[in-house]
Protein backbone atom coordinates (compact mmCIF):
# COMPACT_ATOMS: atom_id res chain seq x y z
CA UNK A 1 0.00 0.00 0.00
CA UNK A 2 1.48 3.39 -0.94
CA UNK A 3 2.02 5.86 1.88
CA UNK A 4 -1.04 8.04 2.54
CA UNK A 5 -1.18 11.13 4.74
CA UNK A 6 -3.70 13.19 6.67
CA UNK A 7 -2.93 16.70 7.89
CA UNK A 8 -5.15 17.99 10.70
CA UNK A 9 -5.43 20.71 13.32
CA UNK A 10 -5.12 19.90 17.01
CA UNK A 11 -8.80 19.78 17.85
CA UNK A 12 -10.90 16.90 19.18
CA UNK A 13 -13.40 17.62 16.38
CA UNK A 14 -10.90 15.86 14.10
CA UNK A 15 -10.93 12.51 15.95
CA UNK A 16 -13.76 11.03 13.80
CA UNK A 17 -11.88 12.17 10.66
CA UNK A 18 -8.72 10.42 11.88
CA UNK A 19 -10.64 7.19 12.52
CA UNK A 20 -12.29 7.35 9.12
CA UNK A 21 -8.89 7.90 7.47
CA UNK A 22 -7.36 4.89 9.26
CA UNK A 23 -10.30 2.57 8.54
CA UNK A 24 -10.61 3.61 4.92
CA UNK A 25 -6.95 2.98 4.15
CA UNK A 26 -6.53 -0.23 6.13
CA UNK A 27 -9.85 -2.00 5.50
CA UNK A 28 -8.53 -3.87 2.45
CA UNK A 29 -5.36 -4.95 4.25
CA UNK A 30 -6.56 -5.70 7.78
CA UNK A 31 -9.27 -8.29 7.26
CA UNK A 32 -10.10 -9.06 10.90
CA UNK A 33 -12.56 -6.45 12.22
CA UNK A 34 -11.34 -6.69 15.83
CA UNK A 35 -7.72 -6.23 14.68
CA UNK A 36 -8.70 -3.28 12.47
CA UNK A 37 -10.50 -1.73 15.44
CA UNK A 38 -7.44 -2.28 17.67
CA UNK A 39 -5.19 -0.45 15.18
CA UNK A 40 -7.76 2.33 14.83
CA UNK A 41 -7.99 2.69 18.63
CA UNK A 42 -4.20 2.74 19.03
CA UNK A 43 -3.70 5.43 16.38
CA UNK A 44 -6.62 7.49 17.68
CA UNK A 45 -5.31 7.31 21.26
CA UNK A 46 -1.90 8.54 20.11
CA UNK A 47 -3.50 11.41 18.15
CA UNK A 48 -5.90 12.25 21.02
CA UNK A 49 -2.97 12.52 23.46
CA UNK A 50 -1.17 14.89 21.10
CA UNK A 51 -4.31 16.94 20.47
CA UNK A 52 -5.57 17.18 24.06
CA UNK A 53 -2.35 17.16 26.08
CA UNK A 54 0.62 17.93 23.80
CA UNK A 55 -1.04 20.76 21.90
CA UNK A 56 -3.79 21.74 24.40
CA UNK A 57 -6.44 21.68 21.65
CA UNK A 58 -4.88 24.56 19.74
CA UNK A 59 -6.50 24.18 16.31
CA UNK A 60 -3.73 26.31 14.77
CA UNK A 61 -1.20 23.54 15.55
CA UNK A 62 -0.93 21.15 12.61
CA UNK A 63 -0.25 17.43 12.92
CA UNK A 64 0.45 14.95 10.15
CA UNK A 65 -0.46 11.27 10.19
CA UNK A 66 1.10 8.94 7.63
CA UNK A 67 0.08 5.33 7.04
CA UNK A 68 1.75 2.61 5.04
CA UNK A 69 1.74 -1.19 4.85
CA UNK A 70 4.98 -3.02 4.08
CA UNK A 71 5.69 -6.74 4.30
CA UNK A 72 2.65 -7.46 6.46
CA UNK A 73 3.30 -4.58 8.84
CA UNK A 74 1.20 -1.46 9.34
CA UNK A 75 3.35 1.63 9.94
CA UNK A 76 1.82 4.80 11.36
CA UNK A 77 3.87 7.98 11.71
CA UNK A 78 2.59 10.97 13.66
CA UNK A 79 4.44 14.27 13.18
CA UNK A 80 3.56 16.44 16.17
CA UNK A 81 4.73 20.05 16.74
CA UNK A 82 4.69 19.48 20.52
CA UNK A 83 7.69 18.03 22.36
CA UNK A 84 7.69 14.23 22.75
CA UNK A 85 6.63 12.39 25.88
CA UNK A 86 7.93 8.99 26.88
CA UNK A 87 5.13 6.52 26.29
CA UNK A 88 7.24 3.73 27.78
CA UNK A 89 7.56 5.48 31.14
CA UNK A 90 3.87 4.97 31.94
CA UNK A 91 2.90 2.04 34.20
CA UNK A 92 2.11 -1.24 32.46
CA UNK A 93 -1.31 -1.54 34.05
CA UNK A 94 -3.65 1.44 34.11
CA UNK A 95 -4.90 2.64 37.44
CA UNK A 96 -8.67 2.56 37.21
CA UNK A 97 -8.91 5.88 38.99
CA UNK A 98 -6.03 8.21 39.71
CA UNK A 99 -5.62 9.11 43.38
CA UNK A 100 -5.36 12.85 42.75
CA UNK A 101 -8.52 13.27 40.69
CA UNK A 102 -11.82 11.59 39.97
CA UNK A 103 -10.91 11.25 36.30
CA UNK A 104 -9.72 7.88 35.05
CA UNK A 105 -6.14 7.87 33.79
CA UNK A 106 -3.76 5.71 31.82
CA UNK A 107 -6.32 3.86 29.67
CA UNK A 108 -5.25 5.34 26.34
CA UNK A 109 -1.54 4.63 26.60
CA UNK A 110 -2.29 1.15 27.97
CA UNK A 111 -4.43 0.36 24.90
CA UNK A 112 -1.79 1.83 22.59
CA UNK A 113 0.87 -0.42 24.12
CA UNK A 114 -1.41 -3.48 24.08
CA UNK A 115 -2.29 -3.14 20.42
CA UNK A 116 0.98 -2.13 18.76
CA UNK A 117 4.09 -4.31 18.42
CA UNK A 118 6.56 -1.43 18.34
CA UNK A 119 6.35 2.20 19.49
CA UNK A 120 9.20 4.53 18.71
CA UNK A 121 9.41 8.14 19.84
CA UNK A 122 11.91 10.61 18.43
CA UNK A 123 12.60 14.27 19.17
CA UNK A 124 12.98 16.19 15.91
CA UNK A 125 14.96 19.33 15.14
CA UNK A 126 13.28 22.32 16.76
CA UNK A 127 11.82 20.21 19.59
CA UNK A 128 8.87 18.68 17.75
CA UNK A 129 8.24 14.95 17.82
CA UNK A 130 7.77 11.92 15.61
CA UNK A 131 5.91 8.87 16.85
CA UNK A 132 6.23 5.65 14.85
CA UNK A 133 3.85 2.76 15.53
CA UNK A 134 4.28 -0.70 14.01
CA UNK A 135 1.68 -3.47 13.95
CA UNK A 136 2.51 -6.92 12.54
CA UNK A 137 -0.70 -8.26 11.01
CA UNK A 138 -2.02 -11.68 11.96
CA UNK A 139 -2.96 -12.42 8.36
CA UNK A 140 -2.17 -10.47 5.22
CA UNK A 141 -3.81 -10.48 1.79
CA UNK A 142 -1.48 -11.44 -1.05
CA UNK A 143 0.70 -8.56 -2.26
CA UNK A 144 0.71 -6.59 1.01
Amino acid at each position, binding site marked *: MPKTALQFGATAENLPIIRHFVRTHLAKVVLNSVEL*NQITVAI*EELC*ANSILHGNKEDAQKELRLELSVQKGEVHAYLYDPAPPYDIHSYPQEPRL*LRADTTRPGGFGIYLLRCFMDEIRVRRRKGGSSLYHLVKRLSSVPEGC
Partner: protein
Amino acid sequence: MHIEVQPASAAGQVQVSLDGELDALTAPKLYERLTQLVQQNPSLKKIILSCQRLTYLSSAGAGILLMCVDNFSPKGIALELTQVQPEVYNILDLLGLTKLIPINHA
Protein backbone atom coordinates in the same frame (compact mmCIF):
# COMPACT_ATOMS: atom_id res chain seq x y z
CA MET B 1 -23.57 9.84 18.75
CA HIS B 2 -27.30 9.46 19.24
CA ILE B 3 -28.59 8.72 22.75
CA GLU B 4 -32.16 7.53 23.14
CA VAL B 5 -33.66 7.20 26.61
CA GLN B 6 -36.72 5.00 27.18
CA PRO B 7 -39.21 5.87 29.97
CA ALA B 8 -38.27 4.38 33.36
CA SER B 9 -40.12 1.19 34.34
CA ALA B 10 -42.06 0.76 37.59
CA ALA B 11 -39.12 -1.32 38.86
CA GLY B 12 -36.81 1.68 38.48
CA GLN B 13 -35.02 0.47 35.35
CA VAL B 14 -34.32 2.61 32.35
CA GLN B 15 -32.95 1.58 28.97
CA VAL B 16 -30.63 3.94 27.10
CA SER B 17 -29.77 3.08 23.49
CA LEU B 18 -26.42 4.24 22.16
CA ASP B 19 -25.99 4.72 18.43
CA GLY B 20 -22.58 5.76 17.05
CA GLU B 21 -19.10 6.18 18.47
CA LEU B 22 -18.08 6.92 22.06
CA ASP B 23 -14.86 8.95 22.08
CA ALA B 24 -13.33 12.03 23.73
CA LEU B 25 -15.81 14.19 21.83
CA THR B 26 -19.02 12.30 22.63
CA ALA B 27 -18.25 10.74 26.03
CA PRO B 28 -18.92 13.96 28.03
CA LYS B 29 -22.34 14.24 26.35
CA LEU B 30 -23.24 10.72 27.47
CA TYR B 31 -22.11 11.44 31.03
CA GLU B 32 -24.12 14.65 31.09
CA ARG B 33 -27.23 12.85 29.79
CA LEU B 34 -26.95 10.00 32.31
CA THR B 35 -26.28 12.38 35.20
CA GLN B 36 -29.38 14.35 34.21
CA LEU B 37 -31.35 11.09 34.09
CA VAL B 38 -30.22 10.16 37.61
CA GLN B 39 -31.12 13.60 38.94
CA GLN B 40 -34.58 13.47 37.36
CA ASN B 41 -35.39 9.95 38.62
CA PRO B 42 -34.79 9.62 42.37
CA SER B 43 -36.22 6.08 42.38
CA LEU B 44 -33.86 4.84 39.65
CA LYS B 45 -32.24 1.45 40.38
CA LYS B 46 -30.63 0.40 37.11
CA ILE B 47 -29.47 1.94 33.84
CA ILE B 48 -29.25 -0.53 30.96
CA LEU B 49 -27.09 0.73 28.12
CA SER B 50 -28.12 -0.99 24.91
CA CYS B 51 -24.96 -1.06 22.79
CA GLN B 52 -26.04 -2.89 19.64
CA ARG B 53 -25.35 0.21 17.56
CA LEU B 54 -22.32 1.37 19.51
CA THR B 55 -19.60 0.83 16.91
CA TYR B 56 -16.54 2.32 18.62
CA LEU B 57 -15.21 2.88 22.11
CA SER B 58 -12.04 4.79 22.95
CA SER B 59 -10.31 5.14 26.32
CA ALA B 60 -12.29 8.33 26.93
CA GLY B 61 -15.55 6.42 26.46
CA ALA B 62 -14.38 3.65 28.79
CA GLY B 63 -13.35 6.29 31.32
CA ILE B 64 -16.82 7.80 31.31
CA LEU B 65 -18.43 4.40 31.89
CA LEU B 66 -16.13 3.96 34.86
CA MET B 67 -17.07 7.41 36.17
CA CYS B 68 -20.74 6.45 35.91
CA VAL B 69 -20.15 3.31 38.00
CA ASP B 70 -18.14 5.31 40.51
CA ASN B 71 -20.72 8.09 40.86
CA PHE B 72 -23.97 6.14 40.51
CA SER B 73 -23.13 3.10 42.69
CA PRO B 74 -23.20 5.09 45.97
CA LYS B 75 -26.71 6.20 44.99
CA GLY B 76 -27.78 2.54 44.64
CA ILE B 77 -27.93 2.70 40.84
CA ALA B 78 -26.43 -0.18 38.86
CA LEU B 79 -25.11 0.06 35.30
CA GLU B 80 -25.42 -2.77 32.78
CA LEU B 81 -24.32 -3.03 29.14
CA THR B 82 -26.20 -5.25 26.70
CA GLN B 83 -25.64 -6.36 23.08
CA VAL B 84 -22.04 -5.19 23.07
CA GLN B 85 -20.25 -5.68 19.73
CA PRO B 86 -17.00 -7.77 19.73
CA GLU B 87 -14.80 -4.75 18.87
CA VAL B 88 -16.17 -2.78 21.82
CA TYR B 89 -16.14 -5.79 24.18
CA ASN B 90 -12.45 -6.32 23.38
CA ILE B 91 -11.65 -2.81 24.70
CA LEU B 92 -13.83 -3.17 27.82
CA ASP B 93 -12.28 -6.54 28.61
CA LEU B 94 -8.69 -5.32 28.23
CA LEU B 95 -9.35 -2.41 30.57
CA GLY B 96 -10.92 -4.66 33.21
CA LEU B 97 -14.38 -3.11 32.97
CA THR B 98 -15.96 -6.50 32.33
CA LYS B 99 -15.15 -7.30 35.98
CA LEU B 100 -16.91 -4.16 37.23
CA ILE B 101 -19.95 -3.91 34.98
CA PRO B 102 -22.34 -6.70 33.93
CA ILE B 103 -21.85 -6.90 30.16
CA ASN B 104 -23.32 -9.24 27.60
CA HIS B 105 -22.23 -9.71 24.00
CA ALA B 106 -24.30 -9.02 20.89
